[in-house]
């Protein structure tokens, strides 16, 4: 008997088992969310406000709150990330400065989301005195997803061969004009990819917004910048604390399904934009 062959067989089976286990977990997770969630979904659920701690009624203001916040987040991060990517690619030449900038910007990526929430609590709600505000929530989320956008935009700008820049300069264009006509369009594409990926993440985050941007009930569409909103993830949190109340639990699954749907929507869009961008690239 060939012991090498036996060991090989065992190992291969181990990997197959691992894969099957992961597949089962995946199916279980998605299956639960979809199956249990769809029981709660109805037109009323999606268009009515919440009642009795969330055990009845719908989640319309949670949906609008989440969407309002991430749209604002997008508007805030997009220009900053694009500008940073351009500067990093075209103006920052000193390797040491590049290193420092990279470290400072990308280390933001790993920071726990609850730390962002606490930062927002201290800096905005307390020091700047804004109170609980959905706009502050958007700012914090924008901070969280900034590195993702910067990276995507930077990668697409960087992938433009220098021949483009040199030809443009040879034609007599100023550096800034080169940027706006040649580099910016590509950069924007990359930034959009990063944006969609970042938003897919931001919309599901609870910890950054739960102390600084959301309220339990009574909020409809905010009329100022300094009001709280309701949001999907914090609503799930509130419902999860009533896990033995079947009506509340069902609504928790329904809300989860809506949230996962939005996450998938944005992720897929990001993927599609990236693929389309790749196709158009030379």
């Amino acid at each position: 008997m060939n012991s090498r062959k036996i060991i090989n067989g065992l190992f291969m089976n181990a990997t197959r088992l691992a894969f099957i286990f992961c597949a089962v977990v995946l199916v279980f997770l998605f299956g639960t969310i979809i199956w249990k969630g769809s029981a709660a979904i109805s037109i009323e659920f999606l268009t009515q406000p919440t009642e009795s701690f969330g055990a009845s009624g719908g989640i319309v203001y949670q949906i609008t709150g989440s969407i309002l916040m991430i749209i604002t987040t997008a508007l805030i991060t997009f220009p900053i990330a694009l500008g940073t990517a351009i500067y990093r690619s075209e103006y920052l030449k000193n390797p040491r400065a590049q290193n420092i900038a990279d470290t400072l910007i990308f280390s933001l990526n790993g920071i726990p989301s609850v730390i962002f929430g606490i930062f927002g609590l201290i800096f905005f709600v307390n020091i700047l005195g804004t109170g609980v505000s959905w706009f502050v929530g958007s700012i914090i989320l924008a901070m969280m997803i900034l590195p993702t956008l910067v990276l995507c935009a930077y990668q697409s700008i960087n992938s433009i061969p220098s021949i483009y820049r040199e030809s443009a300069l040879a034609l007599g264009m100023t550096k800034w004009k080169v940027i706006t006509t040649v580099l910016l369009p590509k950069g924007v594409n990359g930034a959009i990819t990063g944006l969609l990926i970042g938003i897919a993440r931001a919309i599901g985050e609870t910890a950054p917004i739960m102390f600084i941007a959301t309220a339990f009930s009574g909020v409809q569409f905010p009329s100022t910048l300094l009001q709280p909103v309701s949001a999907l993830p914090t609503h799930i949190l509130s419902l999860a604390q009533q896990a033995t109340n079947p009506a509340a639990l069902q609504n928790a699954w329904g809300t989860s399904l809506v949230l996962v749907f939005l996450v998938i929507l944005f992720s897929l869009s990001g993927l599609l934009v990236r693929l389309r961008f790749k196709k158009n690239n030379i």
Partner: protein
Amino acid sequence: MSKSTAKIGKSYVLASTIISALIIVLVFIILVANSWQAVTEVGWNLFSLRWNAPSDEFGILSMCFGTAIVTLIALVLAVPLGILTAIFTSEMLPSKLRIPVKSLLELLAGIPSIIYGLIGIAFFAIWLQGFFQLQSGRTILTAGFLLAIMILPTIITLVDDALHNIPKQYHEASLGLGLYKYEIIKNTLLPIAKADIYGAILLAFGRALGETMAVMLVIGSIDKIPSPFFDVLSPGQTITSKLGREIAETSFGSVHFSAMIFMGLLLFSLVLVITLIAQRANKKRIRLYE
């Protein structure tokens, strides 16, 4: 066009970069400034085992222990499983299945953490309670399990990428030597991918350390180290869970608040160091996020 637009343009990109770079500095400064009170008033007692706010005892050791154990469980479960699965997807999966499978994995990575918390409290805790005949399914082990599932997609995706990007020549040379697949993987591929695999583990480690919502709902929130300390079937407390639950209850500017920020600062610093090490290792191929 001309000079003025260029000037505005240049200021815009410079300003953007400065803003981006300074965010993390600002966060750090705020954390340090707000921990100061606890450090000066509580001092070394911050590292005691007792946390009782009304009597001004702010020992964070139990929370640190909880964070460490929960993360350890998550890594012990997810790393071997993740690597084995990644070996499968990279080496044994037919190539036309690769894209759908990889996309599904990315989808799994995108499930928001609060939903994991919901699944934990609605299913996992109850299963564990029944399986181990416990009084309550809210335990350190439950949190560890949940975390393991959460970091699994990260590990699988990164290790899979690392293995799959190894040039074909290595495969072919090893095959030419008559090695079995297992031996190819163990002796050729894994050593080459080692740095990337370590990077992946570090990134997953960082994520597990910082996870709040899922852990907060299932860990039981008891500010004590279990006795005996390896009894993972009892409830405990992590830094993130404590912060998530209690920060709103503390009044801004009190020692209580400051002690909690100190915990946050510790966590922040640890995760920062890990992220930096991981990114240094991954310098050639920076990931999009995790």
